[in-house]
């Protein structure tokens, strides 16, 4: 056992920023056990039997929503999916009223995805239920960073000292913030690359290196994490065209040769093929993009289990 901790301190998972390295290790170790469950013929354990989990998705999501739901079902929880469209949110109900009404039905956990930073904290501060942040604006997406770390650890056997380069729209990415917190806490080296227009203010203070050249970022990288170009932001002065973006920061097989032998290529999805990443890379031998998705279920099972009061079996 690598851990020195056997439970999480908080009732909620709002972000990576507040976690300790021991807690991160605990979640990753617990997820290892749950990954095995997903490979059995009967993919179910009774850990969350009788518990109600509400998946409150106020913003579009495929991967994260489906992954949470599968994780909940494999833990035998009762699940309820709530999407903003088709609900009273469209009639102008506030988030707090929506959640107060859902709470009146006594859920044990709420998984929330929302476009506004801080909304999971707003719920966590006023609700007895455990709140799991499934992405809040450009703030945090903790389970994504955990599944990324799980995948890196599985591939490279460690996190400490690993050189991770994250490339693309840093400014608007919640994935990158959670990943920076996690990787720095676990003593990995983080390089960010992208045009200065997509680099948020004073990001170096988070303990990362910032470069504006893809080649420079790839040099010596063990892991390359590509971020989605938010196509809806095109024309908002951040970069001139998708064509120019691809030519400057798009990951192609030729450029990837600068990275270390056996480099691990990741992408949180959804991908824009031919914009930030060439299909030859996304579907190529170094890509672990679909493994990330598989690992997402195990990591989310671990988070749900630990927040419900579960402990890592000795």
């Amino acid at each position, binding site marked *: 056992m690598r851990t020195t901790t056997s439970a999480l301190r908080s009732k909620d998972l709002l972000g990576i920023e507040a976690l300790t390295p021991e807690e991160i290790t605990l979640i990753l170790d617990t997820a290892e056990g749950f990954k095995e469950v997903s490979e059995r013929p009967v993919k179910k354990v009774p850990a969350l039997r009788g518990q109600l989990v509400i998946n409150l998705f106020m913003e579009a999501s495929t991967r994260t929503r489906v992954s949470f739901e599968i994780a909940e079902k494999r833990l035998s929880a009762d699940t309820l999916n709530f999407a903003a469209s088709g609900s009273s949110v469209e009639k102008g109900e506030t988030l707090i009223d929506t959640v107060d009404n859902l709470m009146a039905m006594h859920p044990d956990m709420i998984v929330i995805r929302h476009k506004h930073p801080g909304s999971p904290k707003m719920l966590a501060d006023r609700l007895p239920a455990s709140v799991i942040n499934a992405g809040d*604006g450009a*703030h945090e997406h903790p389970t994504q960073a955990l599944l990324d770390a799980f995948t890196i650890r599985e591939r490279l056997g460690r996190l400490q000292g690993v050189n991770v380069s994250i490339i693309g729209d840093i400014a608007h990415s919640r994935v990158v913030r959670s990943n920076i917190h996690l990787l720095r806490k676990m003593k990995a080296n983080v390089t960010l690359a992208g045009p200065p227009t997509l680099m948020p203010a004073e990001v170096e203070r988070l303990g990362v290196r910032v470069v504006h050249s893809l080649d420079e970022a790839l040099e010596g990288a063990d892991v390359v994490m590509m971020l989605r170009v938010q196509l809806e932001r095109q024309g908002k002065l951040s970069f001139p065209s998708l064509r120019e973006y691809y030519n400057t920061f798009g990951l192609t097989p030729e450029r990837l040769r600068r990275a270390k032998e056996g480099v691990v290529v990741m992408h949180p999805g959804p991908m824009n093929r031919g914009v930030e990443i060439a299909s030859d890379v996304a579907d190529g031998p170094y890509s672990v993009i679909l493994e990330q998705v598989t690992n997402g279920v195990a990591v989310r099972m671990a988070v749900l289990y630990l927040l419900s009061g579960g402990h890592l079996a000795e």
Partner: protein
Amino acid sequence: MNLLITGGRVIDPSQDLDSKLDVLIEDGSVVETGRNLKADAPVFDATGLVVAPGFIDLHTHLREPGQEHKETIATGTRAAVAGGYTAVCAMANTVPPNDERAVTEMVLAEAARNGACRVYPIGAVSKGLKGEALAELADLHAAGCVGASDDGRPVYNAQLMRRALEYTSMLGIPVIAHEEDANLNEGGVMHEGFYSTLLGMGGIPAASEETLVARDVILARITGGHVHIAHLSTAGGIEAIRRARRDGVKVTCEVTPHHLALTDEAVQSFSTNLKMNPPLRAEEHRRAILEAIADGTIDGIATDHAPHHFDEKNVEFDLAPFGVIGLETAFAVAYENLVRAKVIKLPRLIDLLSCGPARVFNLPGGTLRAGAIGDVTILDVESRGDVTASFVSKAANSPFIGQTLTGRVVATVVGGELRHDTRESASEPALRKRKPRK
């Protein structure tokens, strides 16, 4: 109204006064400050207290007409006297805005009928606050407006700003500038810096303010007009003002209590009571403000009292309206962060709250000289207490709830009449005849 205030430490920076004296007010005006005064007037024993010329707020949103669910002239002026203010300048961004005489007259009539302190309306710079055509500034001035401002938004059109400065120079009133180039903000909700990066929130860069301050001091120079920079929050803005002053440009400025006390670091709580515009800045900007207060660059502290209804603020940070209340906490916040923090001494703070504001907008008061209006604020600078969510204002959107602060307003005298009195001996509320409309 007559009142004899005895035995207090009278601090009047307008005449470099700081000693234990009595103040006699008769028929609403100061008659004399001196030792052992005798008069046939009610006596206020101010022993152990500080007696200052009444505070004047250069920047208050009273919300009436049009947004009475947030605040009214009655409740806002009660909050003002509770905070030691004997006069407030009422911003023009009401609904409808104060861009014509009829609105100014309505505000003044309601203030006379139900107000607890003096109200000086600010007229709009442009019709409908649209930034297109000048409002009838001479008529607004004649009706009682003491300045012109589209506050809440900047005057984007440089030519309109130039014309406004030229035109108001004829009237002898300032243009009060809300400096913000929102093109630089991209939906920003907090200061752009390390904490906006950490929290993933849209940023409002310091440059958003600094670029327009730089433009407007240039326009003030070429027009000879008086520009007053509202709620100054950036080091670059301060530097531009210092430079312009050295060149003899007529530029004055105010800072808010929250910008001198708080920084963007606090926004990590996601409390919507920390959301205002301009936003709480980074520590280096706060330090620059403190330095500018100490060296005299800042003319006054103004609250930018911006009441909002509980429901409006009880939403996600991104969705909450900008603005915080400030009238009732201004003195204690400033005393704690400036005097107790040894940035300035108490007389300079009184200057920033009273004399400076009177000077820059050319208002009555700000002094206890014989013949001045009988507006006095009486303070206890020993008293220490917690800020609770209970306010006289209709609103409670204060960023200071929960803080322990030193400095308390004991009583507020407007024209010789006690409009706020917290003494135990005050048997009845000072405003018993003036019930606010809630």
